[in-house]
């Protein structure tokens, strides 16, 4: 028996953490937002999410098995998470075939060509979303109006989002409570600030992410839009409107914090988050698009290796 002792270098124990725990943890944190979207967008939210998740998983499985000749690792939850995040960034009346194209772009362009999980430069869900936004601008910017468990899907009544109205002048501001609960048009997972913040609290409590990136994003957007609002309140909406509308919270909490595409040091995370906040504000206030979170995150994804080079972890005993 003794000649069968296991010999390996220290450490001899492990925390028990694994990739699945983190991926499924993020998925669990998205449950409140999904529940809200089912309430406001009903059947459409369900169909879009289900199709997106199924397509992402199937595309990853096929690519990994037949093109990369590896054992598919779809049970680690990362493809499911990409599917959910992609769906959350789409309008709930988007036809199935467009959702499938988005999933193919997300996994087939955004993730697997780089080598799969851990190697991609850009957030796959956002690659999918931006691909669709550029390819199908009309479908991607007509937003169903919120209802109560509506059973209509592609034929849902649509309206403009708050952010697109900002550029045209707002006649009536939604109430703070509506912003908090998400009673407004928008991508299916982004509308409820309260649900997203609940998810944030869960992620922090389970130590799946740290606070640095979301706080830096939100803080920068608040500061930038706050200054603009003070300078010219008639042309620029206040920071609260910006924080609680569009994809800002979804992006800051769930997309910008994607492990693979964000920096590794605390200081790097703050710089990266501030960069996303700044770019988002600039695009929203001065750009052609009403919404800028996706582009801001993708641009900062590209800068992540550079940030990692210049913002190292705080070295013990260093200055």
């Amino acid at each position: 028996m003794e000649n069968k002792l296991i010999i390996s270098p220290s450490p001899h124990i492990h925390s028990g953490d694994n990739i699945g725990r983190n991926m499924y943890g993020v998925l669990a944190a998205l449950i409140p937002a999904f529940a809200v979207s089912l309430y406001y967008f009903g059947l459409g939210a369900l169909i879009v999410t289900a199709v997106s998740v199924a397509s992402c998983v199937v595309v990853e499985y096929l690519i990994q098995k037949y093109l990369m000749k590896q054992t598919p690792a779809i049970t680690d939850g990362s493809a499911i998470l990409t599917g959910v995040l992609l769906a959350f960034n789409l309008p709930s009346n988007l036809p199935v075939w467009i959702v499938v194209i988005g999933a193919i772009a997300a996994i087939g362009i955004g993730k697997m060509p780089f080598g799969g999980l851990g190697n991609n430069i850009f957030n796959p869900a956002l690659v999918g979303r931006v691909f669709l936004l550029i390819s199908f601008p009309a479908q991607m910017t007509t937003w169903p109006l919120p209802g109560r468990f509506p059973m209509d899907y592609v034929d849902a009544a649509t309206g403009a989002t708050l952010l697109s109205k900002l550029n045209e002048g707002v006649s009536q501001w939604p109430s703070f409570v509506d912003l908090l609960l998400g009673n407004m048009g928008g991508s299916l997972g982004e509308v409820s600030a309260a649900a997203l913040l609940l998810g944030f609290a869960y992620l922090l409590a389970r130590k799946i992410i740290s606070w640095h990136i979301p706080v830096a994003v939100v803080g920068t957007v608040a500061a930038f839009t706050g200054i603009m609002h003070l300078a010219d309140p008639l042309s620029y909406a206040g920071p609260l409107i910006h924080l609680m509308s569009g994809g800002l919270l979804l992006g800051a909490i769930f997309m910008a914090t994607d492990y693979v595409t964000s920096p590794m040091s605390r200081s790097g995370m703050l710089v990266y988050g501030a960069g996303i906040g700044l770019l988002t504000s600039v695009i929203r206030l001065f750009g052609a698009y009403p919404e800028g979170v996706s582009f801001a995150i993708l641009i900062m994804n590209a800068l992540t290796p550079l940030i990692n080079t210049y913002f190292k972890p705080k070295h013990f005993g260093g200055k």
Partner: protein
Amino acid sequence: MLRTFRLGGIHPPENKLSAGKTVAILAPPPQVIIPLGQHIGAPAQAVVAKGDQVKAGTLLAKAAGFISAPIHSSVSGKITKIDQAVDASGYARPAIYIDVTGDEWEETIDRSETIRRECTLSSQEIVAKITAAGIVGLGGATFPTHVKLTPPPGSKAGILIINGVECEPYLTSDHALMLQRGEETLTGVSILMKAIGVDRAIIGIENNKPDAISHLRTLARTFAGIEIMPLKVQYPQGGEKQLIDAVLRRQVRSGALPISAGAVVQNVGTAYAVYEAVQKNKPLFERIVTITGRGVANPSNFLVRIGTPIRYLIEAAGGLSGQTGKIIGGGPMMGKALVSADIPVAKGSSGILVLPREEAARKPSLPCIRCAKCVAVCPMGLNPTLLMTATEFVQWEMAEKNYIVDCIECGSCSFTCPSHRPLLDYIRLGKGKVMNIIRTRKS
């Protein structure tokens, strides 16, 4: 708010299975194997020969240079051979085999139970006695104690820090010592203070040992200049640099000695050995060893003669239970997996941990998902995944620039990694390589 070190750290399950168990005295086995290299530095040189009769405390081997330590017999009996023996490193190295008869000690050793607190010796005399007794750091690092008590010219310690942290999961030998030999240990601390010429010592103890904290606090009132500081439980607080940071809020610079922060750090076990050497004339030939883990029937603390093969400890702890996976010399975070149960207890053996098979196997390594959890837990502020990649791709310059030599090999990164990547395995490899490159460059 309790203090702890300020960078990184983890809190693994404490698993102090043998906490509160009274230290039992383990009788000498029929044969002991005493390795000549039980410390950092040159192995000791044997001064005895086959056939010699020895007593417990007889000098077996003298120090081979300044950074080395003498070795004494732990038993009485006859030397049967001086030969190779596999030690905790897994390599066969010179060792002295002694067949035990009776239990006679050298007459110079004071075997009485009376506690002698007064010490009238000068600093030099104390250091000389410590050197002669073969005392090394008993926390596991086994650095010769007299070297640490002889500061390099131009530097002067302002404070003595005593490590009563015992941050490794499972181990309880220091805890047992503090509870059962508190007064002797504090006397040892006073002697160490005198040796380095400081009037203040702080004993850092993690807050999971409240009985030891209150016991030593009561005793410390009768000693001048000794304070007890409870610390928040956080691994690797027993690391020298981490403990100084926790206690003094000072970070030792990269590559510098602790003395540069004005501190000398010694383990509580070392302080106790110093007491025995200086006050009782007893060389270091026995120590408290924890035998623990779910792979033994009855986790315990034993006072063990150096050279006792660990199979005797396992037997005394009720034998193995279930299917044995790993026998570890030391704790689960930094201990070494032993190749057999015939390996002898050495000066640095703070514990023997037996893990059942299901707890001992590693999981397969998966791709890095760049979650940066290893970066967040690294107590030295390094980027473990970057250092592993640098080693994998033989990028020594990159590894050096990212301070690979500062790694203290605590294992927090590998412990934390959700992808079960063997971060420390690679970093250890790269660190050795880079240290070699630096040495060649200098010479």
